[in-house]
């Protein structure tokens, strides 16, 4: 058995290591803490948003080892050892690849007016970075379908697809 919380006292907290936006952190978490609540409530990384808390809206999308997931349905303790990238880390991700102060997708979102209130935007951005990492979507229709896990109540969908399409055609993944 790798870890057993019950063996050190009922419902004990568990020490985990996460690399969040490039910074390695050792954190004690209660097993029922979701990754979303850990980021927002404990680490003050409030860029990641809570919309529905049930996997139905995509506002909480983050990258875990480069893969996009809904952080509201992930238990933080289960991600022990992982690299997490949130919207706060996207610019850093871009700089690491020697580009710009903002991630190309962030620039494209501004360029294309791909948001109104902005609440869904961190999730849309992380999701679109994940989409480019995956490399399965090619056409506009495929982008739309691959982004269907991110709802936008303001209805900025068309511009979001424009932004992603542009960056995709620049071949600027990551």
């Amino acid at each position: 058995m790798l870890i057993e919380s019950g063996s050190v006292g009922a419902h004990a907290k568990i020490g985990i290591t996460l690399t969040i936006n490039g910074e390695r952190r050792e954190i004690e978490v209660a097993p029922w803490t979701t990754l979303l609540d850990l980021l927002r409530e404990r680490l003050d990384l409030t860029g990641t948003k809570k919309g529905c808390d049930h996997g139905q809206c995509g506002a909480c999308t983050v990258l875990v080892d480069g893969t996009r997931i809904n952080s509201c349905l992930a238990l933080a303790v289960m991600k022990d050892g992982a690299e997490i990238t949130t919207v706060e880390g996207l610019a850093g991700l871009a700089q690491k690849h020697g580009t710009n102060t903002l991630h190309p997708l962030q620039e494209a979102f501004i360029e294309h007016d791909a948001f109104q209130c902005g609440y869904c935007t961190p999730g849309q951005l992380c999701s679109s970075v994940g989409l480019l990492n995956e490399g399965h979507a090619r056409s506009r229709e495929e982008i739309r379908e691959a982004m269907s896990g991110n709802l936008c109540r303001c209805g900025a969908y068309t511009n979001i697809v424009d932004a992603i399409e542009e960056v995709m055609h620049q071949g600027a993944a990551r």
Partner: protein
Amino acid sequence: MNRFDYVRADTVADAIKALGGDPNARFIAGGTNLVDLMKYNVEKPGRLVDITRLPLKSIEEHAGGLRIGALVSNADLAYDERIQARYPLLASAILAGASAQLRNAASTGGNLNQRTRCYYFYDEGTPCNKREPGSGCPAIGGVNRIHAILGASESCIATNPSDMCVALAALEATVQVSGPEGDRAIAFADYHRLPGDDPSKDNTIKPGEIVVSVDLPPTDYGQHHTYLKLRDRLSYAFALVSVAAALELDGQTVKTARLALGGVAHKPWRNLEAEALLQGKSATRESFKAAADLVLREAKPQSENGFKIELARRAIVRGLEQAAAGTPQSQSDKRIQ
């Protein structure tokens, strides 16, 4: 969410031991169904056994087919080249479900064991025979637009929500499980069950058992297949009715047919009689209509879902036509040809 102990297992044997036959302990994989249900207090496990580090993440050649590890993610499975080439029906069904984020997190074993989306099941403020045996079924005569038209009982009319499982039923997969009493293989048709008078059980896995793999037999359904999913929104919504259809054709004659429906029953619905009826018939709309009539002969509507019977009839015919023409439904271009 309730408080619970957390155990992280690194071998299958450890995981089974850690669950220890405790009816209040649960395996957790992607967490996309279990964590959701825990937030609604529908699931209140005393212990979670994290199985995400078990060595069950590969897809391997097996007996002429493929063996899918229980922890292969829904996304990795759908995009695997061998699955796309040899079992495109399965790839398509998976991509018709949930969202990219959820498919990245969700596992094969978790998808098989996901619970119904019946509104009352999710609402601890209402009775529900599945959640609390003997408390009643408010869906009967209540809000039941998404509920079953086939195989329901007087105690439960819920449906199984999985898309992946509809394709696995059509492909006659086998579920390999391991438990305190050893290993056993369960034919896919026997994995999920009808509600009968005990709707608390969705499937036939025994307490303490873990799904280790899903095996796909060799098939000849690479060319003529489709997964047609009909729902209230074009994406990111559960099926009202879905059809997995696969044909082996000899010219215009049906050699063998597979047909499974989702969204209509407590388990992926297959009707072997209807499949047999198609055998040797020409692949025409008339034959497909006759098969659809047979599948739906015993369909029973609830107060709000009578439309599903006609929807299913048309979906079966259209699905078989798509399969016959070798033009499977695209899961990104949603126009139905």
